[in-house]
């Protein structure tokens, strides 16, 4: 039946033309790591300039290009593609399907990404420089007052959006139609659930982002005035449209991370996930609520008080399902038999640090208090806690967890643990002091600061350098594992692991589940 498959093709064309979900997943993961290094380099430049008060290394205009590109590359180039790559690798295996529903569109979803980022990065070298209006690109700074490269930026965002939409359609079609017989929705691994819900969010809001940048394009080049008061438009309209996309976007970033953690913690607790059903409902509630809270990013814009109150109440509500998830993870650990290999260490880091980020998020949701927090480093600290210690730690855990299944070799456990501890210390040193300077009055997106903020900024920069350096250790560990790690052929790498992916050979064969398994 499957004898027309001869394994993967040879050479470069294998990667160019592959429709295999494992190959495409691998390409997404390597691409996203390269973007992580690129975005990380921009961060190193930012933190180097902020190491001391005064301008030492770059000019303010260039600094703004760095903060803008750091945000864009990390969100759209590193985090999102990495989880898409994970989805590609794992979802078919987890549901017992041979591949994704649309393998050729899958190839396209990946291959339009490198050109899009090449286009974005090229803006650093054109006249007027790269976009410098922040990853949130508010009008009219991003329209009337933008550099010429804004048009490349808009085109790049369109292509990125297209990639995400195609990828999400693929994931939904796969999960809805290709589950093995017996795998009802409520038997799916939670990682598949979180990705299914995330994919619906993406299909709903990526087009809204496309709409926003199209309106920018029209204002800049075709004489419309969507965001310009002169022509009867309104800059605040941009903010509403952007954050209508932007808030679901942050849940798009974190929900798959929740899914990963929900797979790994039960394994190393040797105990089933606590409250599977409510985990599903909580994820769905978070997704639904994410559509009605967007203006909490805009509390100081001059909204009528009734609007502010509505958005405040709705935002505070999100704490409930999020809390449920945290309690369920801890209950999974409770009275389990715990071991702390590297994937579990990163999940423990996630649990503590993401929760701290959730607490600062709750503080930020309180509108009157936010009048003091908004656009300060307190916000920067919050979102780095949830995005780095949340999403990135989760992705790192996922790589350590599934790498043996992917390549049939074990990574170096001591190096992995060292990577965790250095990351943990570096991350907290980088971002915890930012809460203080934010509360003390330091605004964000500034290249230089008043003297009272100096000590904590220096600490923060040192922490950032440490965290950055530790990622090199991670890269080394991954490459060394693939090239010369200790071979393993245990189907179940981890004693407590459950799920279809742990029933197949290690490393996973090029084609898996060509015959669907029976699921009880």
């Amino acid at each position, binding site marked *: 039946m499957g004898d027309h498959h001869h394994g993967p093709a040879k050479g470069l064309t294998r990667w160019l033309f592959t429709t295999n979900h494992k190959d495409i997943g691998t390409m997404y993961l390597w691409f996203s790591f390269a973007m992580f290094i690129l975005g990380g380099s921009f961060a190193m430049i930012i933190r180097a300039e902020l190491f001391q008060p005064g*301008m030492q290394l770059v000019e303010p205009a260039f600094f703004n290009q760095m903060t803008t590109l750091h945000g864009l590359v990390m969100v759209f180039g590193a985090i999102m593609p990495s989880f898409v790559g994970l989805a590609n690798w794992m979802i078919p295996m987890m549901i017992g399907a041979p591949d994704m529903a649309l393998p050729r569109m899958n190839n396209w979803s990946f291959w339009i990404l490198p050109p899009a980022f090449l286009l974005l990065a090229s803006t650093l070298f054109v006249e007027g420089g790269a976009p410098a209006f922040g990853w949130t690109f508010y009008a009219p700074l991003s329209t009337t007052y933008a550099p010429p490269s804004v048009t490349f930026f808009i085109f790049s965002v369109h292509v990125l959006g297209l990639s995400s939409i195609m990828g999400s359609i693929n994931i939904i079609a796969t999960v809805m139609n290709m589950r093995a017989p017996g795998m009802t929705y409520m038997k799916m691994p939670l990682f598949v659930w979180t990705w299914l819900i995330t994919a619906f969010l993406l299909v709903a809001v990526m087009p809204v982002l496309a709409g926003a940048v199209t309106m920018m394009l029209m204002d800049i080049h075709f004489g419309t005035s969507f965001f310009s008061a002169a022509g009867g438009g309104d800059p605040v309209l941009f903010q509403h449209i952007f954050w209508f996309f932007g808030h679901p976007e942050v849940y798009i970033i974190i929900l798959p991370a929740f899914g990963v953690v929900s797979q790994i913690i039960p394994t190393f607790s040797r105990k089933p996930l606590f409250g599977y059903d409510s985990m599903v409902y909580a994820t769905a509630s978070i997704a639904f609520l994410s559509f009605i809270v967007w203006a909490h990013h805009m509390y100081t814009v001059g909204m009528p008080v009734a609007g502010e109150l509505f958005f405040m109440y709705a935002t505070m509500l999100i704490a*409930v399902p999020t809390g449920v998830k945290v309690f369920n993870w801890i209950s999974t650990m409770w009275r389990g*038999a715990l071991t702390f290999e590297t994937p579990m260490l990163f999940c423990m880091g996630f649990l503590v640090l993401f929760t701290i980020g959730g607490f600062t998020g709750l503080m930020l949701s309180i509108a009157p208090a936010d009048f003091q927090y908004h656009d300060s480093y307190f916000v920067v600290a919050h979102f780095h806690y949830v995005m780095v210690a949340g999403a990135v730690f989760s992705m790192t855990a996922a790589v350590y967890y599934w790498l043996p299944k992917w390549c049939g070799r074990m990574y170096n456990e001591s190096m992995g643990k060292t990577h965790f501890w250095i990351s943990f210390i570096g991350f907290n040193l980088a971002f915890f002091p930012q809460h203080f300077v934010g509360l003390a009055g330091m605004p964000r997106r500034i290249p230089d600061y008043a003297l009272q903020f100096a000590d904590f900024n220096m600490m923060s920069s040192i922490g950032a350098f440490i965290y950055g350096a530790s990622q090199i250790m991670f890269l080394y560990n991954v490459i060394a594992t693939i090239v010369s790690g200790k071979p393993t052929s245990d189907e179940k790498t981890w004693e407590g692991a459950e799920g279809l992916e742990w029933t197949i050979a290690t490393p996973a064969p090029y084609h898996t589940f060509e015959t669907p398994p029976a699921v009880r």
Partner: protein
Amino acid sequence: MYFEAKRLLKLALGFVLTVMSVASAGVLAAGDKMNELNMSPGVTALGQDIFDLHMLILWICVIIGLLVFGVMFYSIYYHRKSRGVTPATFHESTKVEIAWTVIPFFILIGMAVPATSTLLEIYDTDDAELDILITGYQWKWKYEYLGDTGENVSFFSNLRTPQSEIYNSADKGQNYLLEVDEPVVIPVNTKVRFLITANDVIHSWWVPELAVKRDAIPGFINETWTLATEEGIYRGQCAELCGKDHGFMPIVVNVVSQEEYNEWLGAKQSEAAEIKELMAQNFTLDQLMERGKGVYERSCLACHGAGGEGGLGTAIAGSAVATGELGGHLEIGINGVPGSAMQAFGGQMNDVDMAAVITYQRNAFGNNMGDMVQPIDVFNHKKG
């Protein structure tokens, strides 16, 4: 033994992190502003209410965090496989799940009540005694005191920290990046209403100790208010990315007694009259150059460069305009270049300063034109 130590280390670090968050909740830097850990209640009742709300939420989060992490660390230590435990198999409990959905919901309601009343306070702009129109520019603020009649007192407020401090060739002063040439002056114990808008892109006016932050949006007007109960100098910054010098357009508010405020206002109003007198004078080239250098650094340098070499703006050194016909140069300084970033500075500085800076540009940077502009020339040019 190694693994034992690792686990204890993790526990210790977790404990330290928790302690840090507790410490940050309780410690207020005394006096000196260095390394402040917390928000300041400032000098307004509203600021105190916001601070109290902030601390309430923070403490609730700390307590919940201690409980949750406590359970987690307990489990990490006592439920380790290496202690020989057998894992339990339970994986649901409807009772418990309902409890930890409902209880947080009630805690949130408890938070929402004081939050609502404090928010309503922020929006209450009624019965102000003084109105100030604040306009955000790239990259400075303009303040206009709205009176009932006549010419409003109006001035621009630019960063005063010299480039030498920013580029590390001079030691930084105590109020580095938080000092301006013309602060806002308001009387103590007086409700002041701020009307906030912008000239170009979105800015945001933020003075933490007065508990005021509001976005400045071009074409639209926002209003907010403050009531300072203590005299003093309060410093803030622009809080919305607005271009390259977003970090270099601070705010300084002097809260003074009613008498001092009246004096200041009177002085500002007669400043206009003084400028009129200065206008009739003829200055020497040296006087114009000295004054013009200061004006150049405040108002032109950001775009035209410390040596007139240009940057965001065109070069002044050896430029056709600065070495060309005087009238054309004056025209551009006063009326700007519509359609470009060169603003109409005629409305932003008095005629004495305009005369000085045009003279400076024509004679500095190797231009050496030898001519000069007197304030009356500027006045006459404006009249047409």
